[in-house]
Protein backbone atom coordinates (compact mmCIF):
# COMPACT_ATOMS: atom_id res chain seq x y z
CA UNK A 1 0.00 0.00 0.00
CA UNK A 2 1.43 3.36 -0.96
CA UNK A 3 0.36 6.10 1.43
CA UNK A 4 2.26 9.01 -0.13
CA UNK A 5 0.12 12.12 -0.54
CA UNK A 6 0.56 15.22 -2.67
CA UNK A 7 0.88 17.00 0.66
CA UNK A 8 3.97 14.89 1.43
CA UNK A 9 5.57 15.94 -1.87
CA UNK A 10 5.01 19.69 -1.59
CA UNK A 11 5.96 19.84 2.06
CA UNK A 12 7.07 20.32 4.72
CA UNK A 13 7.21 24.04 5.32
CA UNK A 14 10.54 23.81 7.06
CA UNK A 15 13.80 25.39 8.07
CA UNK A 16 16.49 24.56 5.48
CA UNK A 17 18.76 23.40 4.08
CA UNK A 18 17.77 19.75 3.43
CA UNK A 19 14.46 17.91 3.63
CA UNK A 20 16.10 14.54 4.25
CA UNK A 21 19.06 15.75 6.30
CA UNK A 22 17.41 18.59 8.28
CA UNK A 23 13.60 18.17 8.36
CA UNK A 24 13.89 14.35 8.28
CA UNK A 25 16.38 14.56 11.15
CA UNK A 26 14.00 16.71 13.20
CA UNK A 27 11.17 14.22 12.57
CA UNK A 28 13.38 11.28 13.61
CA UNK A 29 14.26 13.13 16.82
CA UNK A 30 10.60 13.93 17.52
CA UNK A 31 9.41 10.37 16.94
CA UNK A 32 12.27 8.95 19.02
CA UNK A 33 11.36 11.35 21.82
CA UNK A 34 7.74 10.16 21.72
CA UNK A 35 8.68 6.49 21.60
CA UNK A 36 11.15 6.88 24.50
CA UNK A 37 8.41 8.58 26.49
CA UNK A 38 10.57 9.25 29.57
CA UNK A 39 12.42 12.47 30.41
CA UNK A 40 15.58 12.60 28.30
CA UNK A 41 18.75 13.06 30.37
CA UNK A 42 21.57 11.57 28.36
CA UNK A 43 21.61 10.53 24.73
CA UNK A 44 24.22 9.24 22.29
CA UNK A 45 23.46 9.74 18.59
CA UNK A 46 25.35 7.88 15.85
CA UNK A 47 25.01 9.14 12.28
CA UNK A 48 25.88 6.77 9.43
CA UNK A 49 27.09 7.12 5.83
CA UNK A 50 25.60 10.13 4.02
CA UNK A 51 24.19 11.36 7.32
CA UNK A 52 27.70 11.20 8.80
CA UNK A 53 29.53 12.62 5.80
CA UNK A 54 27.24 15.55 5.06
CA UNK A 55 25.27 15.75 8.30
CA UNK A 56 27.08 18.70 9.84
CA UNK A 57 26.71 20.82 6.70
CA UNK A 58 23.04 19.94 6.44
CA UNK A 59 22.36 20.51 10.12
CA UNK A 60 21.35 16.86 10.70
CA UNK A 61 22.93 16.95 14.16
CA UNK A 62 21.06 20.15 15.01
CA UNK A 63 17.84 18.69 13.59
CA UNK A 64 17.95 15.46 15.58
CA UNK A 65 18.74 17.31 18.79
CA UNK A 66 15.94 19.84 18.16
CA UNK A 67 13.49 16.98 17.53
CA UNK A 68 14.59 15.18 20.69
CA UNK A 69 13.91 18.42 22.56
CA UNK A 70 10.39 18.59 21.08
CA UNK A 71 10.80 21.25 18.37
CA UNK A 72 9.06 20.97 15.00
CA UNK A 73 10.55 21.18 11.47
CA UNK A 74 9.67 24.86 10.94
CA UNK A 75 11.02 26.14 14.26
CA UNK A 76 13.77 28.71 13.63
CA UNK A 77 15.48 27.66 16.90
CA UNK A 78 16.99 24.69 14.98
CA UNK A 79 19.77 26.90 13.62
CA UNK A 80 20.94 27.82 17.15
CA UNK A 81 19.88 24.67 18.99
CA UNK A 82 23.37 23.92 20.36
CA UNK A 83 23.32 27.26 22.20
CA UNK A 84 19.73 26.92 23.46
CA UNK A 85 18.67 26.67 27.08
CA UNK A 86 16.80 23.44 26.29
CA UNK A 87 19.93 21.73 24.90
CA UNK A 88 22.00 22.75 27.92
CA UNK A 89 19.63 20.80 30.17
CA UNK A 90 20.51 17.38 28.68
CA UNK A 91 23.75 15.54 27.96
CA UNK A 92 24.29 14.61 24.31
CA UNK A 93 27.05 13.17 22.20
CA UNK A 94 27.33 12.68 18.43
CA UNK A 95 29.36 10.03 16.65
CA UNK A 96 29.90 9.60 12.91
CA UNK A 97 30.42 6.22 11.27
CA UNK A 98 30.67 4.60 7.85
CA UNK A 99 28.80 1.30 7.55
CA UNK A 100 27.25 0.49 4.18
CA UNK A 101 25.19 -2.32 5.75
CA UNK A 102 23.10 0.60 7.02
CA UNK A 103 20.80 2.80 4.92
CA UNK A 104 22.58 5.86 3.40
CA UNK A 105 20.76 8.12 5.84
CA UNK A 106 20.67 6.02 9.00
CA UNK A 107 20.89 7.06 12.62
CA UNK A 108 21.04 5.25 15.96
CA UNK A 109 19.71 7.06 18.99
CA UNK A 110 20.82 5.57 22.30
CA UNK A 111 19.04 6.84 25.37
CA UNK A 112 21.25 6.26 28.41
CA UNK A 113 20.28 6.40 32.09
CA UNK A 114 17.66 4.72 34.27
CA UNK A 115 15.53 3.83 31.26
CA UNK A 116 17.71 2.72 28.36
CA UNK A 117 16.46 2.44 24.80
CA UNK A 118 18.03 2.21 21.35
CA UNK A 119 16.11 3.50 18.35
CA UNK A 120 17.30 3.08 14.75
CA UNK A 121 15.84 5.24 11.99
CA UNK A 122 16.27 6.18 8.33
CA UNK A 123 15.52 9.34 6.42
CA UNK A 124 14.15 8.05 3.13
CA UNK A 125 13.80 11.26 1.13
CA UNK A 126 11.79 14.46 0.90
CA UNK A 127 11.46 14.64 4.68
CA UNK A 128 9.87 11.20 4.98
CA UNK A 129 11.31 8.93 7.64
CA UNK A 130 11.10 5.43 9.04
CA UNK A 131 11.88 4.14 12.52
CA UNK A 132 13.24 0.64 11.76
CA UNK A 133 14.30 -0.76 15.12
CA UNK A 134 13.47 -0.32 18.78
CA UNK A 135 15.95 -2.16 21.03
CA UNK A 136 16.95 -4.34 18.04
CA UNK A 137 13.36 -5.37 17.27
CA UNK A 138 12.27 -4.63 13.70
CA UNK A 139 9.49 -2.06 13.47
CA UNK A 140 8.08 0.19 10.75
CA UNK A 141 6.91 3.53 12.06
CA UNK A 142 6.71 6.49 9.67
CA UNK A 143 4.97 9.06 11.84
CA UNK A 144 2.03 9.34 9.45
CA UNK A 145 -0.35 7.39 11.69
CA UNK A 146 -1.38 7.38 15.29
CA UNK A 147 0.41 4.22 16.40
CA UNK A 148 0.39 1.83 19.33
CA UNK A 149 3.80 0.29 19.97
CA UNK A 150 4.11 -2.73 22.23
CA UNK A 151 6.88 -4.97 23.47
CA UNK A 152 5.32 -8.06 24.99
CA UNK A 153 5.98 -11.66 25.86
CA UNK A 154 4.95 -13.79 22.89
CA UNK A 155 1.84 -15.68 24.05
CA UNK A 156 -1.06 -17.32 22.21
CA UNK A 157 -3.79 -14.91 21.23
CA UNK A 158 -2.18 -11.62 22.30
CA UNK A 159 -2.83 -10.02 18.90
CA UNK A 160 -6.53 -10.88 18.91
CA UNK A 161 -6.87 -9.54 22.45
CA UNK A 162 -5.43 -6.19 21.37
CA UNK A 163 -7.36 -5.96 18.12
CA UNK A 164 -10.68 -6.78 19.79
CA UNK A 165 -10.19 -3.90 22.22
CA UNK A 166 -9.39 -1.56 19.31
CA UNK A 167 -12.49 -2.83 17.49
CA UNK A 168 -14.61 -2.21 20.59
CA UNK A 169 -13.64 1.47 20.39
CA UNK A 170 -14.71 1.49 16.74
CA UNK A 171 -11.29 2.32 15.33
CA UNK A 172 -9.98 1.05 12.02
CA UNK A 173 -6.50 -0.49 11.89
CA UNK A 174 -4.44 0.74 8.93
CA UNK A 175 -1.49 -1.63 9.31
CA UNK A 176 -0.30 -4.14 11.87
CA UNK A 177 3.27 -5.29 12.10
CA UNK A 178 4.43 -7.93 14.62
CA UNK A 179 7.77 -9.62 15.09
CA UNK A 180 9.42 -11.88 17.62
CA UNK A 181 12.94 -13.10 18.16
CA UNK A 182 11.92 -16.66 19.11
CA UNK A 183 8.83 -18.53 20.28
CA UNK A 184 7.80 -17.49 23.77
CA UNK A 185 10.29 -14.63 23.92
CA UNK A 186 9.71 -10.90 23.61
CA UNK A 187 7.80 -9.70 20.59
CA UNK A 188 7.12 -6.24 19.16
CA UNK A 189 3.81 -5.14 17.76
CA UNK A 190 3.17 -1.84 15.94
CA UNK A 191 -0.42 -1.00 15.16
CA UNK A 192 -1.15 2.01 12.96
CA UNK A 193 -4.63 3.47 13.40
CA UNK A 194 -6.79 5.58 11.11
CA UNK A 195 -8.02 7.73 13.99
CA UNK A 196 -7.17 8.75 17.55
CA UNK A 197 -7.67 6.19 20.34
CA UNK A 198 -8.73 7.09 23.88
CA UNK A 199 -6.69 6.63 27.07
CA UNK A 200 -9.31 4.18 28.33
CA UNK A 201 -8.62 1.85 25.42
CA UNK A 202 -4.89 1.98 26.14
CA UNK A 203 -5.53 1.23 29.83
CA UNK A 204 -7.63 -1.77 28.79
CA UNK A 205 -4.86 -3.04 26.53
CA UNK A 206 -2.33 -2.61 29.32
CA UNK A 207 -4.49 -4.53 31.80
CA UNK A 208 -5.38 -7.27 29.34
CA UNK A 209 -1.90 -8.22 28.10
CA UNK A 210 0.49 -6.64 30.62
CA UNK A 211 3.09 -5.42 28.07
CA UNK A 212 6.73 -4.69 28.91
CA UNK A 213 6.40 -1.47 26.97
CA UNK A 214 3.37 0.34 25.64
CA UNK A 215 3.62 3.64 23.81
CA UNK A 216 0.97 5.54 21.96
CA UNK A 217 2.40 8.08 19.52
CA UNK A 218 0.41 10.67 17.67
CA UNK A 219 1.11 11.19 13.99
CA UNK A 220 3.62 13.96 13.28
Amino acid at each position, binding site marked *: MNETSILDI*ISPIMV*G*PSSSHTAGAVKIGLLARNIYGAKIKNVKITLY*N*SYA*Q*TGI*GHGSDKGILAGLLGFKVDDTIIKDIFNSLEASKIKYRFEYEENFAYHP*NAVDINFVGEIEMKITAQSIG*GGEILITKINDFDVKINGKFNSIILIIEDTIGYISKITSIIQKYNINIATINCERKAKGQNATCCICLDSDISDNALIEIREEINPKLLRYIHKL
Partner: protein
Amino acid sequence: MQINTFEELKNILKKENKEIYEIAQEIECQNLCLPKEDFRKLIKKTLDAMKEAIKNGLNNLQITNGKMGGQDCIKLVKNYQKAPSVFSKLFEKILTYALATSEENARMGKIVACPTAGACGIVPSVLISLFEELEIDDEKQINALIIAGLIGKIISFKVKPSGAIAGCQAECGTASAMAAGAAAYLLGGNINAILNSIALCIKNILGLTCDPVRGFVEVPCIKRNPFMAIHAMTAVELALAGIESVIPTDDVIDAMEQTGALMSPSLKESSLAGLAKTKTAIIMSKSCFTKRYYSEHSNK
Protein backbone atom coordinates in the same frame (compact mmCIF):
# COMPACT_ATOMS: atom_id res chain seq x y z
CA MET B 1 -7.51 4.73 -4.65
CA GLN B 2 -4.19 5.73 -6.10
CA ILE B 3 -2.82 6.63 -9.55
CA ASN B 4 0.46 4.75 -9.79
CA THR B 5 1.68 5.59 -13.30
CA PHE B 6 1.32 8.34 -15.88
CA GLU B 7 -0.32 5.81 -18.21
CA GLU B 8 -3.01 5.20 -15.57
CA LEU B 9 -3.54 8.96 -15.25
CA LYS B 10 -4.01 9.25 -19.01
CA ASN B 11 -6.51 6.36 -19.06
CA ILE B 12 -8.57 7.80 -16.21
CA LEU B 13 -8.71 11.16 -17.98
CA LYS B 14 -9.93 9.40 -21.13
CA LYS B 15 -12.75 7.72 -19.21
CA GLU B 16 -13.84 10.62 -17.00
CA ASN B 17 -14.60 14.05 -18.27
CA LYS B 18 -12.58 15.83 -15.60
CA GLU B 19 -9.43 17.91 -15.29
CA ILE B 20 -6.23 16.42 -13.85
CA TYR B 21 -6.37 18.52 -10.69
CA GLU B 22 -9.97 17.41 -10.03
CA ILE B 23 -9.04 13.74 -10.16
CA ALA B 24 -5.93 14.28 -8.02
CA GLN B 25 -7.93 16.29 -5.51
CA GLU B 26 -10.69 13.68 -5.24
CA ILE B 27 -8.16 10.92 -4.54
CA GLU B 28 -6.33 12.99 -1.93
CA CYS B 29 -9.52 13.98 -0.12
CA GLN B 30 -10.65 10.37 -0.05
CA ASN B 31 -7.30 9.03 1.23
CA LEU B 32 -6.82 11.78 3.80
CA CYS B 33 -10.49 11.89 4.86
CA LEU B 34 -10.49 15.65 4.19
CA PRO B 35 -13.22 17.88 2.73
CA LYS B 36 -12.23 19.48 -0.60
CA GLU B 37 -12.11 22.99 0.89
CA ASP B 38 -9.72 21.89 3.65
CA PHE B 39 -7.40 20.18 1.19
CA ARG B 40 -7.28 23.28 -1.01
CA LYS B 41 -6.65 25.43 2.07
CA LEU B 42 -3.59 23.30 2.88
CA ILE B 43 -2.29 23.72 -0.69
CA LYS B 44 -2.93 27.48 -0.42
CA LYS B 45 -0.96 27.60 2.83
CA THR B 46 1.97 25.90 1.08
CA LEU B 47 1.72 28.33 -1.82
CA ASP B 48 1.76 31.29 0.57
CA ALA B 49 4.85 29.88 2.29
CA MET B 50 6.56 29.63 -1.13
CA LYS B 51 5.74 33.27 -1.88
CA GLU B 52 6.97 34.29 1.57
CA ALA B 53 10.28 32.46 1.02
CA ILE B 54 10.81 34.32 -2.29
CA LYS B 55 10.04 37.66 -0.61
CA ASN B 56 12.42 36.94 2.27
CA GLY B 57 15.12 35.68 -0.08
CA LEU B 58 14.95 38.76 -2.32
CA ASN B 59 15.46 41.04 0.68
CA ASN B 60 18.14 39.05 2.49
CA LEU B 61 21.84 39.71 2.01
CA GLN B 62 23.01 37.39 4.77
CA ILE B 63 25.77 34.91 3.91
CA THR B 64 24.67 31.26 3.92
CA ASN B 65 25.54 28.76 6.68
CA GLY B 66 28.45 27.25 4.78
CA LYS B 67 29.63 30.74 3.73
CA MET B 68 29.67 29.78 0.03
CA GLY B 69 26.68 31.83 -1.10
CA GLY B 70 23.90 34.20 -0.17
CA GLN B 71 24.67 37.26 -2.26
CA ASP B 72 24.16 36.06 -5.81
CA CYS B 73 20.47 36.83 -6.12
CA ILE B 74 21.08 40.48 -5.39
CA LYS B 75 23.78 40.60 -8.10
CA LEU B 76 21.29 39.28 -10.62
CA VAL B 77 18.54 41.70 -9.55
CA LYS B 78 20.91 44.68 -9.77
CA ASN B 79 22.22 43.63 -13.16
CA TYR B 80 18.71 43.22 -14.60
CA GLN B 81 17.95 46.79 -13.43
CA LYS B 82 20.85 47.99 -15.60
CA ALA B 83 20.57 45.51 -18.46
CA PRO B 84 17.31 43.56 -18.83
CA SER B 85 17.50 39.91 -19.90
CA VAL B 86 17.74 39.19 -23.63
CA PHE B 87 14.80 36.86 -23.03
CA SER B 88 11.77 38.28 -21.24
CA LYS B 89 10.63 39.59 -17.88
CA LEU B 90 9.34 36.07 -17.17
CA PHE B 91 12.85 34.65 -17.63
CA GLU B 92 14.28 37.29 -15.25
CA LYS B 93 11.69 36.43 -12.62
CA ILE B 94 12.24 32.68 -12.84
CA LEU B 95 16.01 33.05 -12.34
CA THR B 96 15.78 35.54 -9.49
CA TYR B 97 12.97 33.73 -7.64
CA ALA B 98 14.80 30.40 -7.88
CA LEU B 99 18.02 31.93 -6.53
CA ALA B 100 16.15 33.84 -3.81
CA THR B 101 14.47 30.68 -2.52
CA SER B 102 17.50 28.42 -2.61
CA GLU B 103 19.72 31.04 -0.96
CA GLU B 104 17.12 31.45 1.77
CA ASN B 105 17.18 27.65 2.24
CA ALA B 106 20.97 27.62 2.62
CA ARG B 107 20.65 30.29 5.33
CA MET B 108 18.46 27.84 7.27
CA GLY B 109 15.55 30.13 6.53
CA LYS B 110 11.95 28.92 6.17
CA ILE B 111 11.09 27.35 2.79
CA VAL B 112 8.83 24.65 1.34
CA ALA B 113 10.53 21.37 0.41
CA CYS B 114 9.27 20.69 -3.12
CA PRO B 115 9.91 17.78 -3.32
CA THR B 116 13.08 18.40 -1.28
CA ALA B 117 14.69 21.42 0.34
CA GLY B 118 17.73 21.29 -1.95
CA ALA B 119 15.35 21.67 -4.92
CA CYS B 120 13.04 24.15 -3.18
CA GLY B 121 13.53 26.99 -5.68
CA ILE B 122 12.45 25.23 -8.86
CA VAL B 123 8.67 24.72 -8.65
CA PRO B 124 7.96 28.06 -6.89
CA SER B 125 10.09 30.11 -9.29
CA VAL B 126 8.46 28.68 -12.42
CA LEU B 127 4.90 28.72 -11.12
CA ILE B 128 4.87 32.01 -9.23
CA SER B 129 6.59 33.83 -12.13
CA LEU B 130 3.91 32.48 -14.46
CA PHE B 131 1.14 33.38 -11.99
CA GLU B 132 2.37 36.98 -11.90
CA GLU B 133 3.12 37.44 -15.58
CA LEU B 134 -0.09 35.74 -16.80
CA GLU B 135 -2.22 37.16 -13.94
CA ILE B 136 -3.51 33.74 -12.91
CA ASP B 137 -6.31 33.73 -10.31
CA ASP B 138 -6.02 32.07 -6.88
CA GLU B 139 -8.04 28.96 -7.73
CA LYS B 140 -6.02 28.18 -10.84
CA GLN B 141 -2.81 28.75 -8.86
CA ILE B 142 -3.93 26.06 -6.41
CA ASN B 143 -4.84 23.74 -9.32
CA ALA B 144 -1.35 24.14 -10.78
CA LEU B 145 0.33 23.26 -7.48
CA ILE B 146 -1.92 20.19 -7.11
CA ILE B 147 -0.78 19.04 -10.57
CA ALA B 148 2.88 19.62 -9.65
CA GLY B 149 2.30 17.57 -6.49
CA LEU B 150 0.64 14.73 -8.40
CA ILE B 151 3.58 14.52 -10.81
CA GLY B 152 6.06 14.38 -7.90
CA LYS B 153 3.94 11.77 -6.19
CA ILE B 154 3.79 9.44 -9.21
CA ILE B 155 7.56 9.76 -9.76
CA SER B 156 8.20 9.09 -6.05
CA PHE B 157 6.43 5.72 -6.26
CA LYS B 158 9.42 4.51 -8.29
CA VAL B 159 12.18 6.91 -7.33
CA LYS B 160 12.26 8.39 -3.83
CA PRO B 161 13.18 12.07 -4.00
CA SER B 162 16.50 11.66 -2.24
CA GLY B 163 20.01 12.48 -3.42
CA ALA B 164 21.38 9.76 -1.15
CA ILE B 165 19.24 7.12 -2.89
CA ALA B 166 19.22 8.20 -6.55
CA GLY B 167 21.36 11.35 -6.90
CA CYS B 168 20.28 14.87 -7.82
CA GLN B 169 18.23 13.62 -10.78
CA ALA B 170 15.70 12.47 -8.15
CA GLU B 171 15.65 15.84 -6.40
CA CYS B 172 16.21 18.72 -8.84
CA GLY B 173 15.18 16.49 -11.76
CA THR B 174 11.86 15.58 -10.14
CA ALA B 175 11.28 19.23 -9.17
CA SER B 176 11.96 20.30 -12.75
CA ALA B 177 9.45 17.72 -14.06
CA MET B 178 6.85 18.87 -11.53
CA ALA B 179 7.36 22.48 -12.60
CA ALA B 180 7.24 21.55 -16.30
CA GLY B 181 3.97 19.61 -16.06
CA ALA B 182 2.25 22.32 -14.03
CA ALA B 183 3.55 25.06 -16.34
CA ALA B 184 2.29 23.14 -19.38
CA TYR B 185 -1.14 23.08 -17.70
CA LEU B 186 -1.03 26.85 -17.02
CA LEU B 187 -0.10 27.50 -20.65
CA GLY B 188 -3.08 25.51 -21.90
CA GLY B 189 -1.33 22.24 -22.72
CA ASN B 190 -3.38 19.04 -22.84
CA ILE B 191 -2.45 15.76 -21.12
CA ASN B 192 -0.09 14.79 -23.96
CA ALA B 193 1.80 18.07 -23.69
CA ILE B 194 1.98 17.68 -19.91
CA LEU B 195 3.29 14.09 -20.07
CA ASN B 196 5.78 14.94 -22.81
CA SER B 197 7.12 17.91 -20.88
CA ILE B 198 7.72 15.60 -17.88
CA ALA B 199 9.47 12.98 -20.03
CA LEU B 200 11.62 15.53 -21.88
CA CYS B 201 12.60 17.12 -18.60
CA ILE B 202 13.71 13.89 -16.88
CA LYS B 203 15.42 12.48 -19.98
CA ASN B 204 17.80 15.39 -19.98
CA ILE B 205 18.93 15.17 -16.36
CA LEU B 206 19.42 11.38 -16.06
CA GLY B 207 22.49 10.58 -14.01
CA LEU B 208 22.76 14.01 -12.40
CA THR B 209 25.03 13.53 -9.39
CA CYS B 210 24.65 14.82 -5.85
CA ASP B 211 28.16 15.90 -4.80
CA PRO B 212 27.74 18.85 -2.43
CA VAL B 213 30.98 20.60 -1.52
CA ARG B 214 31.71 20.23 2.19
CA GLY B 215 28.32 18.60 2.61
CA PHE B 216 26.44 21.89 2.50
CA VAL B 217 23.36 22.42 0.31
CA GLU B 218 25.18 25.27 -1.43
CA VAL B 219 27.64 24.23 -4.13
CA PRO B 220 26.32 23.26 -6.67
CA CYS B 221 22.77 23.23 -5.24
CA ILE B 222 21.94 26.95 -4.98
CA LYS B 223 22.83 27.84 -8.57
CA ARG B 224 21.45 24.55 -9.88
CA ASN B 225 17.92 25.69 -8.94
CA PRO B 226 17.69 28.49 -11.57
CA PHE B 227 19.25 26.16 -14.16
CA MET B 228 16.66 23.45 -13.49
CA ALA B 229 13.81 25.97 -13.53
CA ILE B 230 14.77 27.08 -17.05
CA HIS B 231 15.30 23.42 -17.96
CA ALA B 232 11.61 22.90 -17.11
CA MET B 233 10.57 25.79 -19.35
CA THR B 234 12.59 24.36 -22.25
CA ALA B 235 10.69 21.09 -21.91
CA VAL B 236 7.36 22.96 -21.76
CA GLU B 237 8.02 25.01 -24.90
CA LEU B 238 9.04 21.91 -26.86
CA ALA B 239 6.05 19.90 -25.61
CA LEU B 240 3.57 22.70 -26.32
CA ALA B 241 4.82 22.71 -29.92
CA GLY B 242 3.76 19.08 -30.15
CA ILE B 243 7.27 17.66 -29.88
CA GLU B 244 7.08 14.22 -28.30
CA SER B 245 9.41 12.14 -26.20
CA VAL B 246 10.11 8.95 -28.14
CA ILE B 247 10.41 7.12 -24.81
CA PRO B 248 7.12 7.38 -22.89
CA THR B 249 7.05 9.09 -19.49
CA ASP B 250 6.73 5.93 -17.35
CA ASP B 251 9.67 4.32 -19.16
CA VAL B 252 11.75 7.43 -18.58
CA ILE B 253 11.01 7.18 -14.83
CA ASP B 254 12.10 3.50 -14.97
CA ALA B 255 15.36 4.66 -16.54
CA MET B 256 15.82 7.18 -13.75
CA GLU B 257 15.27 4.46 -11.15
CA GLN B 258 17.80 2.14 -12.80
CA THR B 259 20.34 4.91 -13.32
CA GLY B 260 20.01 5.91 -9.66
CA ALA B 261 20.59 2.35 -8.49
CA LEU B 262 23.69 2.01 -10.71
CA MET B 263 25.26 5.28 -9.56
CA SER B 264 28.12 4.91 -7.06
CA PRO B 265 27.24 5.85 -3.46
CA SER B 266 30.20 8.24 -3.65
CA LEU B 267 28.14 10.41 -6.04
CA LYS B 268 24.95 10.24 -4.00
CA GLU B 269 24.99 12.86 -1.25
CA SER B 270 28.10 11.56 0.49
CA SER B 271 30.53 14.27 -0.66
CA LEU B 272 33.09 11.54 -1.46
CA ALA B 273 33.56 12.32 -5.17
CA GLY B 274 32.83 14.79 -7.95
CA LEU B 275 32.78 18.50 -7.11
CA ALA B 276 33.10 17.64 -3.41
CA LYS B 277 36.52 16.06 -3.99
CA THR B 278 38.01 18.66 -6.30
CA LYS B 279 41.34 20.23 -5.23
CA THR B 280 39.58 23.43 -4.23
CA ALA B 281 36.83 21.67 -2.32
CA ILE B 282 39.36 19.61 -0.33
CA ILE B 283 41.29 22.73 0.64
CA MET B 284 38.02 24.40 1.69
CA SER B 285 36.99 21.34 3.72
CA LYS B 286 40.30 21.19 5.60
CA SER B 287 40.01 24.76 6.73
CA CYS B 288 36.50 24.16 8.06
CA PHE B 289 36.26 20.97 10.11
CA THR B 290 38.96 19.39 12.19
CA LYS B 291 39.03 15.59 12.07
CA ARG B 292 38.20 15.40 15.76
CA TYR B 293 35.01 17.40 15.43
CA TYR B 294 33.95 15.18 12.60
CA SER B 295 34.46 11.88 14.43
CA GLU B 296 32.52 12.96 17.49
CA HIS B 297 31.21 15.99 19.29
CA SER B 298 29.26 16.49 22.49
CA ASN B 299 28.25 19.20 24.92
CA LYS B 300 29.61 17.70 28.15
